[in-house]
C-alpha cells in the first residue's frame, strides 16, 4: 500500500461514522497500518496524525504501547509462540526454542529473507490446545515439535 492509498483508507474509516470523535479512530487506523505495511513508520504515523488531528507524539506513544503494533520492520508472517502457564506446562518453551533453531533467529528477530518474525507471546486464549502457536491469523494447537517444519513450509520456508 502507498501512503496516498493509506490516507484514502483512513478517510474512508472516518466516513464510517463509527465514533463520535476523531481520536477514537486511532486504534482502527493503526490496525490498518499494521496490516498493510511491514512497519508503522514515522511516515505512516504522520498520515494518521494529520487525518485524525492527533499530535504525532501521541500517535507514536500509542503505537508503541500496544504489543501487536510493530514500529520496527516485521516479517511477512509473524509467528507467535505462547509460553504462558498452560502452554509452558505443555511444552511451549520447547516449541519456541525449536522454532528459533529451525529459523536460526532469536525470539523477537526476523529471518534475513524477511519471511518470518518469531515472537515469544503471552496467553492467546488457546490454552485448551496448549501449546499454541499462531502464524498471522492462523491458529495451531497441541503443537508437536515434529510438525513445526511442515507448518513453516506452508508459509514458504525452504529449509
Amino acid at each position: 500500500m502507498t501512503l496516498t492509498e493509506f490516507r484514502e483508507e483512513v478517510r474512508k474509516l472516518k466516513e464510517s461514522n463509527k465514533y463520535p470523535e476523531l481520536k477514537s479512530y486511532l486504534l482502527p487506523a493503526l490496525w490498518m497500518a499494521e496490516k498493510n505495511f511491514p512497519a508503522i513508520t514515522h511516515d505512516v504515523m504522520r498520515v494518521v496524525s494529520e487525518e485524525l488531528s492527533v499530535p504525532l507524539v501521541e500517535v507514536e506513544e500509542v503505537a508503541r504501547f500496544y504489543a501487536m503494533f510493530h514500529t520496527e520492520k516485521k516479517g511477512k508472517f509473524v509467528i507467535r509462540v505462547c509460553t504462558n502457564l498452560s502452554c509452558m506446562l505443555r511444552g511451549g518453551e520447547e516449541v519456541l526454542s525449536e522454532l528459533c533453531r529451525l529459523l536460526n533467529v532469536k525470539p523477537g528477530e526476523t529471518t534475513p529473507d524477511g519471511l518470518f518474525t518469531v515472537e515469544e507471546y503471552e496467553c492467546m486464549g488457546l490454552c485448551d490446545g496448549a501449546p499454541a502457536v499462531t502464524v498471522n491469523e492462523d491458529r495451531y494447537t497441541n503443537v508437536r515439535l515434529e510438525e513445526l517444519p511442515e507448518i513453516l513450509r506452508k508459509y514458504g520456508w525452504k529449509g
Partner: protein
Amino acid sequence: MAGRVKMEKLLLRNVDKENSHTIDVYLKNGGYQSLRKALKEMSPEDVVEEVKLSGLRGRGGAGFPTGLKWEFAAADVKEPKFFVCNADEGEPCTFKDRVIFEKDPHALIEGMLIGAYATGCRYGYIYLRGEYPIGRKILERAIGEAYEKGFLGENILGTDFSFDLYVHSGAGAYICGEETALIESLEGKRGEPRIKPPFPVNAGYLWKPTVVNNVETLANIPLIIERGGKWYSGIGSPDCPGPKLYPVSGKVKRPGVYELPMGTPLSEIIYEHAGGIVQDRKLKAVFPGGASSSVLTADEIDVPMDFPSLAKAGTMLGSGAIMVLDETDCIVRAALRLIEFFRHESCGKCTPCREGTDWLVRLVRRIEEGEGSEEDLDVILSVSETMENSFCGLGMAAHNPVASSVRKFREEFLTHIELGRCPYRRG
C-alpha cells in the same frame, strides 16, 4: 457421586449446533425472543428489576451485581450513553468468552441490546482483544445479520428504541481489560486506568455514562428475560447464582470450557469434568481464578467455585480460569512465569506495580536459577505487601501467585536455594 443430575446447558445451549454462529440457527432456536419480550412487554425499569431479582453478578472478575450497575446507568441523564462489552479476555488461561462470541455471537448481541434498552444507551462497542481476529470476523458478520433483520439500527422491532453496535479491536495489552483503561483505549489512547470514582456508569467513554459488562455476563441476559429472574436465582450458589463457564487448562486429561452451576466444587470440576490429572499423576497445585489468583494446594480443592467461597479460602474466582499443575511441575517456575507476565503488562503508571513486578521477577528468577537466599523469601513477601497500594487491580493482585506460592510451598523454594538448582529441571 453416582446419580448426579446433569445440568441443562444454558450458556452453551447452542454451541454444538451446526452453524451456531449464524442468525438463522439462532432464530430457529428461539433467538431474539427475549429482546422482543423486553421491548414489547417490559419497561426499561422492569428489565432492570428482573436482572436485579436474578442475582446475576458480573463474570469479568469483580463480581459486581449487574442489575445494580444498570440501575446506576439508567439513573444518569447525560446523553448519549454507551454500552460496552468487555471482550478483552486477557487473563492468562481464560478462554471462555471466546466460546460465546465465536459459537453463539447472537446471544451476546441480544444481551447487549436488552442491556442498552434497560439503561437507555444509544451506541455500543464490543472491545475485542486483538489476538482474536477470527472472533472479529464472526462478530462483524453477526452484527451485519442483526442489522439486516432489523434487530440493530433505528426503531428496532417498530419501537422507539434505536441502537448501533460496532466492534473495536484492542491491540495486545492486558491492562485494557480493566474497564477504565479499556475506555481510554477506546478513546484512542494508551491503556492507562483512570481514577475511580467517577465510575464509568457516570463518566465513561468521552466522559458520558457507559455500561461495561463482560461477554459471559451479557450472555446470561436473554435467559433471565426468557425464564425470569426468580428461576435464575435458583441455580447454583444462593449469593451469586447462575450457570458459570469454567475454562480448565494445564495438566488435566480434558482441557476445555465446562458450564456448571456456580459453586460447583473445584475437585469435581477437575476430576469429573476435566477427567483428572494427566497420566493419573498427583495433583500438586491449582490457580483457581486466573493468573492473579492465589494458589491452592491439593488439600484445598474441595472449595465451591464461587466468589464468596474462594474469597474465604484466601483466593478469588476472578475469571474462573482453573490452571492445574501436577507433581512433576515446579511451583517456582510457574510463579516466575506468571509474574513475568504481569511485569510485561504493567502499564507503568504507578510505582508499586511497575517496580514491584520487576523486583518480584528478579527475586523469583534468582531462586529458580539456584542463586537465591532464604532472605529473598521475606523480601518477596514484603514487596508483595507494598504492591497492595497499587493504583489499579493489576498491581493489587499481581503478587498473589508469587506470594501465595512462597507461603504454601516454602519448602520447595528452600530446596531450590539449598540445592542451588531446580530439582524438577529435566535433562
